[in-house]
């Protein structure tokens, strides 16, 4: 359970494996590094070195009152990667973490070997339905509503002890994660910069994702030179939680094919 002080905040992270390929996992909103636990369990430790931080306001990382924007959280991620001396890594981001990973890669592509965006917040923003916001406030107050809400996002995930931990993680997130942060996603737009990307990119989408529209991901994929889009049938917003074994196989294949120096 190590921590690193990135200057502005203390970030908690988990590392595992001693392999040659480093994979940096970035979780989404109302989540934590735990969301990658099941995927990491399927990655052979002699081949991969995995790093999964808790973002600002989430998990065991600090929860300051400000800084809940994609831009500032991408700054956190960059400081984190620098402080852990991650020279070259595969970057994997889910949902909000996808937008953070994408922006991090646009700002400093050099260390990024491959980019995997899982049901990402699209590069041209995400306007959430207005009725979602009062519901999110209700989720904060009522664990049962939170559990129901999370289950509707991850319809194929087993509601076991692990799922209950994810519910607890949601409830521990900073208040901004339920309001200002998701609201701010509507104004996000760095789609005109997608042409700059040269890093091999895999976009993944769960067919039953209720929040990320497929068309927006298709628009992104068309603008990214070395990208492809893969759809998970029967899966909701989080293939890494709902189908960890299938997702980890796909990720390994993508990472290995993009690392010809092996």
């Amino acid at each position, binding site marked *: *359970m*190590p*921590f*690193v*002080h*990135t*200057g*502005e*905040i*203390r970030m*908690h992270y988990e*590392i595992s494996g001693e*392999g*040659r390929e480093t994979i940096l996992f970035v979780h989404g909103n109302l989540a934590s590094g735990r969301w990658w636990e099941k995927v990491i369990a399927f990655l052979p430790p002699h081949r991969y070195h995995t790093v999964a931080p808790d973002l600002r306001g989430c998990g*065991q990382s*600090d929860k300051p009152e400000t800084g809940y924007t994609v831009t500032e959280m991408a*700054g956190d991620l960059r*400081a984190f990667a*620098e*402080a*852990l*001396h991650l*020279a*070259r890594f595969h970057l994997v981001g889910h949902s909000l973490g996808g937008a953070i990973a994408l922006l991090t890669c646009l700002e400093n592509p*050099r*260390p990024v070997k491959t980019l995997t965006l899982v049901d990402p917040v699209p590069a041209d923003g995400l306007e959430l339905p207005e009725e979602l916001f009062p519901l999110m406030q209700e989720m904060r107050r009522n664990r049962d509503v939170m559990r129901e809400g999370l289950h509707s996002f991850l319809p194929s995930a087993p509601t076991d002890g692990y799922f209950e931990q994810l519910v607890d993680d949601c409830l521990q997130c900073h208040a901004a994660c339920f309001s200002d942060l998701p609201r701010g996603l509507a104004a996000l737009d760095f789609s005109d910069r997608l042409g700059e990307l040269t890093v091999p990119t895999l976009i993944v989408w769960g067919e039953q994702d209720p929040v990320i529209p497929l068309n927006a991901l298709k628009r992104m994929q068309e603008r990214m030179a070395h990208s492809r889009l893969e759809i998970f049938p029967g899966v909701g917003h989080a293939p890494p939680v709902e189908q960890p074994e299938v997702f980890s196989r796909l990720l390994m294949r993508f990472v290995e094919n993009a690392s010809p120096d092996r």
Partner: protein
Amino acid sequence: MPWINANDVRLYYELHGAKESLGHPGESLGSMGIPLLLIAGLGFGAWSWFRQIPVFSHTFTTIAFDNRGVGQSDQPDSPYTIRMMAEDAAALLRGLGIERAHVLGHSMGGYIAQELALHHPELVVGLVLVSTSFGGKNAVLMSPETATQMRAELEAEGAEAVLRKGLSLRLSDSFIAERPDIVDQFLALRSTHLPTRIAWERQFAACLGFETESRLAALQAPTLILTGDDDPIVPAENSRLLAERIPDAQLVLFPGARHLVFIERAEEFNRTVIKFLNALNRNRPPL
């Protein structure tokens, strides 16, 4: 990003450890256990400790930083001295609210650590000197061939082939053959953190002016001296001489290892350092 203004320069630093021991950002770190400060060698920076930080940070609040002239710290184009860089390190510790620390320095970082311990004995609890010397006329120099090769690396401005060639000065042939993964990681970090020519010259000039031999008898901190016994850059004889001159010193040689002993023999190195520093914590009642 973590920067602190210390001794008139802005230094990039990192804090690694348990959450409780890191304090709240911007707060004094005075209340934690004795932290460990890592001081990098000529042209290297905080990144060079990539095989130490994941281990040390479980035992100590670990501070790594870029010396003036490299990485994300300021690179003033004016003369540097080792004494000045020791004052940078002291100001960094004080700026973080740290009154006592263990200090580990590699090569030029070992020079800085010696000056820090000599001028601020109250600050340094345990001293670890790695692949270093006391400088001056009695230090054992590298061969002219080694000096030429190091110069060539700088001229090549990070060309991977040249960096790869220079590996044999720093890591043993067997390590290079057996651990290509770590070698690649090292080269990737090094090529993305190469010092500028100007700053390298400034740090190099500071090394030429360094000498502590006549003052070592005054060193109060218990000292652990570590070196590879096949180091072409700072020959191991320097460590033997240091161990003779420093009053409370232990010497540990790593057979076959070269200049970056902490990278190629990381497991043994880390274990040796932790054991030494933990024994100091036990033997001394907290003040």
